[in-house]
């Protein structure tokens, strides 16, 4: 029911919204929950397990019941707290976890079967027959569990991610946080004040506090006004700090304003100091049927009438064990809600406190034994001090079990909260470095204490950052009592007493867990699921611990609460991802000829982050195989070119490069002449092959190394480790030049003729002047610097030409032009791969981090005359075992058969079983040169088995091929074509 006046809503801005198919109206400044209450909607959801009818229980993020699906289609957002959802025009919300409807939920039978479904029941049954678990039982359980539904469609939201830095981060904008921000902000420090709510003020908004003679909310507004004027203070509303991380890093989630582009913004805040002013959480009370719609936290009831001008009921009873609860009676009465009685089990409540009850009946020493009603509260059964029971009719029961500091963030780095007997609550333990707790979160529960503490904390934090300490006199605040008792459980034979409202964990579940030996709080949590719901035990933790302590015969403080974990406020998965999703998941690296290849219709393939041309289809070609075959033939018979710029290129300078290379590579480097290139093999320290490639000496103290595309970053890092850490005495400088050069492989019998025509005149390409494994610097395209290497991956006469990357496309065009008479053909990585298999060069599938040089037939590259990385550990027996699998070639006996990578090798006549598994096929290709399928494989003692037949078995995909073992070089084993 909407109160005729008051509240912080803007009555000039009415908003229409829908819930459960019906239209309602509220005002700007409402939450969905306050608007529903103002419209008299009591039933808002169903509980997780028992499917009991539930109503709004809180006015904040700890809400266990009023969770709705918000929005439609791809915009549907499940499990949205109605209590924190700002009302906006056209908002549509749907109840969740009920079928067929909220009012009539078939699963509510679960409630009747509750004794059967007690904690842990599923561990004791559903075992027979075992196949029924996946087929019958589990689907039933799964369907019943869960809350709202995901839309099933990709999330269309836009999520922002920001790095923030400040001197002082203040978390929470209640009186303590506002004071802290003001003190720090005035000192000139860079301050961020983060507040979860869309309004600043904390409890000042929901309570009728008095500050400096005016209302608390007016004070909050004036502070907010001043904060805006401070140049280095930023106020972030709708921003929950959800986690504390190492090094003063805080995670925060800001909700985008309605109608904005950004749905939410994930902020990583690095703060030198932090003031945690997160307030306190009110505790519910545990009695029979305490979950009926109409039962609500007392502070929430106050918030609804004071802040939202929404009456959550017409006739109320207040049930409290805290002095603070009594304020509720006064506020409700003032708002026109009839208060029938205030029930307080304590008998020593002060007269100043009981005076707050006004005309309501005061029942001290009494307790509510049971709530009555079904889908709505009808009344309460009160057990008087004398034990007599009576029923008081009401539709609102405001409950208060006292307050617990909201200390989750203090525990994220591992500190354990400690019991404070004085506060009758867990208090922050050791706090993270640089973080100070202030206000109610620190046990300074009254507004006056919170203010003073906040000013002091803010000033101290600023001072610690080198700003002047400002001692600000806290304004006076009205009188306020803050005292409560912990009440355990008002046992009742009938009805269920809920601890965890969402997960339907009851007091009897705690007893049961205890009876079954689950006595550590963490065991109880895991056995009963207490505190594992969306509110993470904010409402249930204290009461659960109290009951467990009782069962254990221990004091509550002897056993800590269960571990607090981030996020304090739930974070959408999409928010953590930000913009790095879908196609923008990882950046793309483009080669210098990318646009050119795109224009030629190339098909691209991912190679790590790179996109490379896979092949260049010609019109009329049926499939990739046809294109690739044409490309290979062109290279073998004429000339082709391929962009190999993705190979890692590392420039090395200095007088000690040769020594450095000697230690990095297994083979000899001391004698490499200027103008020459050499193939090198690099190992990890454990003797396994890391990478291979060529390194060229361009000048006396200048070398350039190439690495494989896949290992470029790892090799660079490995070399930097060697340079900086292992051998800092060597005078070597290194820099990556991968992106600088467009490097084009030009290969084929006509490669020289082609290359000669693109190089600037004057460079002698004759085999005498520029033999196999020569390297030189020259110019290309009229004066641009260029490098030429006579190396080959294809087995044909080959050159690699490097020119500045911006000239990549021009170079490709030039090659097409000069090569036209030779029918020059651009080729992609697929043809490149075919030719390297034909030549038996190891690549990714062979350099798999498990192979030794010996395995790959490269043992001849192991120098015996020097130390190099990997030498000693490579000598271990397991790595030199003659039974190891080594690289061989395979040809199908029936040449028409296709070989597939991943098949395993079994001796002919032996069964296909693990015991006879002798290796596997690493790489395969259709060889246009040989006219049949070929493969590289790793085969036990392979080098000694040339000519033998093996079965290639492929039980995974079916099919089997018999193949002949051969040397891994299929084309031109003598290397004549290479040298020309």
């Amino acid at each position, binding site marked *: 029911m909407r109160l005729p006046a008051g509240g912080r809503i803007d009555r000039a801005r009415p908003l229409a919204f829908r819930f459960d198919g019906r239209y309602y109206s509220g005002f700007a400044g409402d939450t969905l929950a306050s608007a529903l209450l103002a419209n008299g909607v009591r039933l808002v959801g169903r509980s997780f397990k028992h499917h009991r009818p539930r109503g709004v229980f809180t006015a904040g993020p700890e809400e266990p019941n009023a969770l709705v699906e918000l929005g439609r289609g791809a915009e549907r957002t499940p499990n949205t707290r109605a209590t924190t959802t700002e009302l906006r025009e056209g908002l549509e919300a749907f109840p969740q976890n009920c079928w067929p409807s909220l009012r009539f939920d078939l699963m509510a039978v679960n409630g009747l079967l509750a004794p059967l479904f007690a904690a842990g029941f599923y561990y004791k049954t559903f075992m027979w027959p075992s196949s029924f678990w996946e087929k019958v039982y589990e689907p039933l359980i799964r369907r019943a569990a869960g809350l709202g539904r995901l839309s099933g469609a990709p999330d269309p939201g836009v999520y922002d991610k920001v790095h923030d*830095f400040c001197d002082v981060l203040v978390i929470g904008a209640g009186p303590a946080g506002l004071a802290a921000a003001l003190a720090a902000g005035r000192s000139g420090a860079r301050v961020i004040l983060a507040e979860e709510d869309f309004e600043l003020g904390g409890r000042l908004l929901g309570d009728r506090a008095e500050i400096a003679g005016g209302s608390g909310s007016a004070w909050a507004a004036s502070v907010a006004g001043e904060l805006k004027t401070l140049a280095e203070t930023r106020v972030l509303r709708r921003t929950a700090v959800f986690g504390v991380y190492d090094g003063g890093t805080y995670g925060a989630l800001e909700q985008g304003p309605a109608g*904005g582009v950004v749905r939410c913004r994930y902020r990583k805040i690095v703060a030198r100091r932090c003031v945690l002013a997160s307030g306190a959480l009110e505790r519910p009370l545990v009695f029979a049927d305490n979950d009926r719609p109409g039962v609500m936290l007392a502070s929430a009831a106050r918030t609804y009438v004071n802040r939202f001008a929404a009456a959550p009921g017409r006739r109320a009873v207040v049930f409290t064990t805290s002095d603070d609860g009594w304020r509720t009676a006064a506020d409700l009465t003032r708002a026109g809600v009839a208060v029938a009685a205030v029930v307080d089990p304590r008998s020593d409540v002060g007269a100043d406190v009981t005076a707050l009850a006004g005309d309501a009946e005061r029942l001290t020493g009494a307790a509510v034994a049971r709530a009555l009603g079904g889908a709505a509260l009808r009344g309460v059964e009160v057990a008087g001090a004398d034990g007599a029971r009576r029923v008081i009719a009401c539709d609102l029961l405001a409950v208060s079990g006292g307050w617990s500091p909201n200390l989750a963030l203090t525990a994220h780095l591992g500190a354990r909260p400690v019991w404070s007997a004085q506060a009758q609550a867990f208090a922050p333990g050791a706090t993270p470095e640089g973080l100070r707790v202030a206000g109610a979160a620190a046990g300074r529960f009254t507004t006056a204490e919170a203010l003073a503490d906040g000013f002091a904390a803010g000033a101290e934090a600023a001072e610690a950052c080198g700003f002047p300490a400002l001692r600000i006199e806290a304004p006076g605040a009205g009188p306020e009592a803050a005292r409560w008792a912990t009440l355990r459980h008002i046992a009742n034979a009938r009805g269920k007493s809920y601890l965890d409202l969402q997960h339907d964990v009851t007091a009897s579940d705690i007893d049961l867990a205890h009876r079954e030996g689950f006595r550590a709080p963490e065991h109880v949590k895991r056995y009963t699921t207490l505190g594992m719901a969306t509110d993470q035990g904010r409402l249930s933790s204290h009461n659960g611990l109290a009951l467990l302590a009782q069962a254990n015969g221990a004091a509550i403080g002897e056993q800590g609460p269960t571990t607090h974990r981030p996020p304090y406020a739930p974070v959408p998965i999409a928010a953590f991802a930000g*913009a790095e999703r879908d196609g923008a998941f990882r950046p793309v690296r483009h080669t210098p000829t990318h646009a050119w290849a795109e224009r030629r219709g190339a098909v691209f393939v991912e190679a790590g982050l790179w996109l490379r041309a896979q092949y260049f289809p010609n019109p009329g070609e049926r499939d990739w195989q046809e294109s690739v075959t044409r490309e290979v033939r062109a290279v073998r018979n004429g000339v082709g070119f391929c962009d190999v710029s993705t190979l890692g290129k590392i420039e090395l300078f200095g007088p000690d490069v040769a020594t450095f290379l000697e230690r990095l590579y297994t083979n000899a480097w001391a004698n490499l002449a200027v103008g020459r290139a050499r193939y090198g093999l690099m190992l990890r320290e454990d003797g396994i092959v890391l990478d291979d490639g060529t390194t060229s000496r361009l000048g006396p103290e200048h070398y350039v190394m190439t690495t494989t595309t896949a290992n470029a970053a790892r090799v660079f890092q490995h070399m930097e480790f060697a340079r900086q850490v292992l051998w800092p005495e060597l005078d070597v400088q290194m820099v990556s030049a991968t992106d600088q050069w467009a490097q084009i492989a030009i290969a084929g019998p006509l490669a020289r003729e082609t290359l000669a025509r693109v190089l600037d005149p004057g460079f002698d390409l004759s085999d005498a002047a520029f033999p196999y494994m020569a390297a030189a610097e020259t110019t290309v395209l009229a004066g641009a610097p260029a490098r030429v290497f006579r190396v080959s991956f294809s087995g044909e006469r080959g050159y690699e030409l490097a020119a500045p990357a911006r000239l990549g496309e021009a170079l490709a065009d030039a090659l097409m032009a000069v090569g036209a008479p030779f029918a020059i053909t651009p080729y992609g990585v697929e043809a490149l791969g075919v030719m390297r298999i034909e030549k038996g060069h190891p690549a990714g599938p062979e350099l798999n981090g498990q192979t030794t040089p010996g395995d790959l037939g490269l043992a001849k590259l192991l120098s015996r005359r020097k130390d190099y990385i990997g030498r000693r550990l490579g000598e271990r027996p397991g790595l030199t075992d003659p039974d190891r699998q080594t690289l061989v070639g395979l040809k199908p006996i029936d040449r028409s058969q296709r070989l597939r990578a991943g098949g395993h090798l079994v001796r002919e006549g032996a069964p296909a079983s693990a015991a006879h598994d002798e290796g596997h096929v690493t790489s395969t290709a259709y060889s246009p040169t040989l006219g049949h399928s070929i493969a590289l494989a790793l085969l036990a003692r392979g080098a000694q088995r040339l000519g033998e037949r093996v079965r290639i078995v492929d039980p995974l995909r079916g099919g089997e091929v018999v193949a002949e073992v051969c040397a891994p070089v299929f084309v031109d084993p003598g290397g004549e074509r290479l040298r020309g």
Partner: protein
Amino acid sequence: MAEPGSHLERLPGAAVAWLAARRGQGEALARAMQAAFGLALPDTPRWAAASGRRAVWAGPGQWLIVAAHEPVPGGLAQELAAALTAVLGARAAVSIQSDGRALFRLSGADARETLARLCPIDLHPRAFGPGHAALTRLGQIACCLWQTDDAPTYEIAVPSSYAASAGHAFAAATARLPASRTPP
């Protein structure tokens, strides 16, 4: 106060050379650069400029020498190498990088907010201003950035193969800026 918004441009013709000191030759190199180009190589994450060349700290003992243009690709590096060889002998390492780095210039009142979405470093004027440089990340891409003026203007170098992705990252970040920002 500057206009809100920011302006991003690619600096396609810019010249970049990587320069590193030989072991123990840092001071000699610094003197040589001073003598040859009037450039004082900074030894902390800053930059210095003289006669159209900027020396940006790029790691201990390493610099990026940046100029707006060069006559031929790689000309800047060649010029440096020639000058240093003349003064020092082969006592410095110079690598052509004009095509290895893509240079962006981001300028305007929103520039800092845009970078706050991409770089995990503090660019607040109290922490970072004209004359400062940093090696850090631009989203997932390694970058070297420096501030040239109070507009503020930043120049950002990324490996050139990432240029398109860097451009997208800038655009995506700009699109996510809060609609109404409180002026700095």
